[in-house]
């Protein structure tokens, strides 16, 4: 048997072999194939070395589960500002001492800071949050447009957060929101589009990608060419 160079053995299959997850017949066939194909043999040896080098795994900690209370809505941190801020940049009521932030690079810069009990900490693409946490964001888009923030819960509920507002290229746009007591995970989408999207349009984008888990749905497809977007996954920690 000779390997077909136009159809090489997949890395996944090599990993399954190295992990002992191939059935005995398939594993034997692979080993036999490697005897005639030095390149395949080298790949198998490399994958095995890489997996063995992974060594002892760190302990796995999974989020604690909580009973499901009635679903609540997001609450703006400063509702009095919301209406007045529809056409202007919404800023934080008091300037907070800005810790060094982790900045997303890509379609536009997104800085996220989590504030809990007066303590601020910069966040990345995965936020471990609790009810009552405040998430402060700063978006610096690479082009002018309309900024909208949407929240998608893992039960499929989708809602806009605050009002759509115009943004200017290179100019920071800030805002904040409070986490409610929804116990499941949710993803925040920060969208910069030419014009404001109707919730139905975003809902259709979600439905197009419904087969993908929320944890992997970091981009919403089909929102139109030129849409800039970044997203953050929020998972809830156990009750304090």
């Amino acid at each position, binding site marked *: 048997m000779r390997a077909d*160079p136009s159809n*090489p053995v*997949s*890395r*996944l299959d090599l*990993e*399954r072999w*190295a*992990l002992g*997850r191939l059935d005995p017949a398939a594993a034997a066939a692979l080993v036999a194939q490697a005897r005639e194909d030095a390149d395949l043999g080298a*790949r198998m040896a*490399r*994958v095995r070395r*890489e*997996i*063995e*080098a*992974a*060594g002892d*795994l*760190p302990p*796995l*900690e*999974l*989020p604690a589960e909580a009973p499901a209370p009635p679903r609540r809505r997001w609450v703006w941190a400063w509702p009095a500002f919301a209406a007045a801020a529809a056409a202007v940049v919404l800023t934080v009521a008091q300037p907070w001492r800005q810790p060094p932030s*982790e*900045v*997303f*690079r*890509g379609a536009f810069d997104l800085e996220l800071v989590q504030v809990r009990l007066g303590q601020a900490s910069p966040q*990345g*693409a*995965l936020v471990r949050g609790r009810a009552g946490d405040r998430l402060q964001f700063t978006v610096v888009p690479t082009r002018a447009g309309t900024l909208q923030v949407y929240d998608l819960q*893992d039960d499929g509920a989708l809602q806009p957060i605050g009002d759509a507002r115009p943004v200017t290229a290179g100019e920071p746009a800030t805002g904040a929101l409070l986490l409610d007591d929804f116990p*499941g*995970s949710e993803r925040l989408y920060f969208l910069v589009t030419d014009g404001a999207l109707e919730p139905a349009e975003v809902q259709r984008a979600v439905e197009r990608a419904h*087969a993908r*888990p*929320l*944890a*992997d749905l*970091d981009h919403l497809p089909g929102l139109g060419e030129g849409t800039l977007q970044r997203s953050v*996954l929020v*998972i809830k920690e156990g009750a304090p």
Partner: protein
Amino acid sequence: MTLTRADLHELYRRCGPAVRARCRAICGNEADADEALRDAFTRAWLARGRFDGRYPLAWLQTLGRSAAIDVIRRRRPWADDPRAWLDCPAPRGAEPLAALQAARLLDSFKPEDAAMLRLRHAEGWRVHEIAEHLGTSERTVRRRLERLEARARALLGPEREVCHAS
């Protein structure tokens, strides 16, 4: 099926080394690889209701890929030593790209593209392996690598061979 906590721990024991190996290949260091590994399995736990029970390793590697890309997006593991991150020796006979310039060059890439360069040049992955990992075609990978390598020529050095045929 819905995975139980025990099921996922068992998957972690059996498949975790392979997921960690790929995260390590993308991130280039153990600490970031472990963070990506943790995030991948957290995402798996949150998405457990949607997992149909088939091909768990493929499912976990998909989650691991996203997690590792997110980690390098926010950690920029190349910041201190871009050449080491890409396993590129300083080019002979030519003015080497300063470390700060090299880091900024990698900053200008999409994280997925920086990862592609690393998999190719530091880890020696084949084009078809990169294509399989990213869920795209070999042709797309070759084209993207050619563009990336052209932009990163000063960093990679003239001795580093441009995208192989395989």
